[in-house]
């Protein structure tokens, strides 16, 4: 019986790093995703466009309010995420550690998914 975990990647707001920095990181990330797939750990992964492209919706009475921009403005935002399935937190943290190493300096939050 495995448990799914959401690995969220937090990155600072602002410009993405230049290609000479970003490209090797993306290559390593692809490699890690492939390893996760080969091991049957990988469930889903995605990178996200910047928070400025976000739209927030919230129901109020009979109406749904729409706001331009991310839900909260902070110094950091979720830049992408990976969902994995692991035996337990130790295994999930091990993959999280690998992800954090690849993403050098970005924080990775590991959180269990409800219901498996």
């Amino acid at each position: 019986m495995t448990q799914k975990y959401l690995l969220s990647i937090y990155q600072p707001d602002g410009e993405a790093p230049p290609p000479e920095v970003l490209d090797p990181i993306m290559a390593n990330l692809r490699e890690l995703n492939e390893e996760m797939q080969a091991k049957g750990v990988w469930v889903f992964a995605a990178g996200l466009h910047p928070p400025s492209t976000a739209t927030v919706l919230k129901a109020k009475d009979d109406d749904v309010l729409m706001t331009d921009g991310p839900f909260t403005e902070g110094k950091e935002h979720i830049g992408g995420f990976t969902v994995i399935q692991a035996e337990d937190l130790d295994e999930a943290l091990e993959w999280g550690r690998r992800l954090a190493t690849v993403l050098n300096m970005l924080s990775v939050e590991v959180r269990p998914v409800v219901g498996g």
Partner: protein
Amino acid sequence: MIEQIFLAEYGRAVSVLTRVLGDLDLAEEAVQDAFTTAAEQWPVKGVPPAPAGWIITTARNRAIDKLRRESKGREKHAQAVLLQMLQHQPEEEVGDVPDERLRLIFTCCHPSLALQAQVALTLKLLGGLTTGEIARAFLVPEPTMAQRIVRAKGKIRAARIPYRVPRDADLPERLKAVLAVVYLIFNEGYFDKEALEAEAIRLGRVLAQLMPDEPEVWGLLALMLLVASRRQARLRNGELVLLEDQDRTRWNAEQTAEGQDIVRRCLRWNQPGPYQIQAAINAVHSDPPTDWHQVVALYDQLLAHTPSPVVALHRAVAIAETEGPRTALREVDALDLDRYHLFHAVRADLLQRLGEDPAAALEAALERAEHPAERDLLRKRLSLATANQQEHPDQHDQDHHDPQPGGHSTGL
């Protein structure tokens, strides 16, 4: 009788039931139920021949009853656990139950939990302390402590923190975390909470029993025993007494002997680590007069293992004895420890020994010290220093004594 069995067996019973039930809360509840039953029955029927086995069997039966009731509803989880338990129903009243406490310790001290949560869980699940007792020991309101424990248990369950001993590759790091938790509990008891100090030593003994081949486990136990052995001499009417001025007849000879014995065994092992080295330093202090050259050598070794300004400060105290206060002061002044009260207390002592006015340094120490016993001692030294300066403004004060309140390594 039942109290002793509670102390000795609570953690073990919880650890066994946690494995069987797969849930800390259920396990704790069942074990508490079993002890309540014991408190009712044993005085009347007598203590059973294998009390530990009796507690575990009773707890298991209680849990089965509870799960039966719950599985009549549509509790899937309860049904599954119940089925598993009935299939693995062991022979009646086991006398010799496997010890599962190691798993429990490593779960309680999982690095994904905040240190405070690790400490609280360890005391509650292994030590059998109540939430109220733990809250009082750490001076937080009981609801805060209760919340901290509930949150930690919830994380263990939801995030699936595994209930097992870490694999060999992870063991050194994970063991470090466990030892840090036990030592933190010990230090919390250092001044006035003797029960915590005793509890930490008890946990240290459990660890040594469960991991007899880990030298650092023994090193921590020896360190705690040697520091604790001086407890009665260290405090006189709530006042701190420096090592030099302690009444040695009040040292606990049994603890000293046991601690020194373990230190000797560790030396033969020859796999030194920070706890073993600190224990060795305390063993030297326990064998007066202190051989300061040996203490300096041990601090050099400790610095190589754990380079830290606090260790360097303690080393400087020993240097003052072997090379004089001037050299020591030079080393102390190079340390970036302005926020630490002992830094200023040590400076004050060295200045005094060099015939300079220690008042400013003592005031700085007093500003930063928190514990009443330490503050009292500092205040006393400050008023002495001020009086001294007024009486003999030009005379060098040659008063010579151990320059610190607090700090185990310097040997209080």
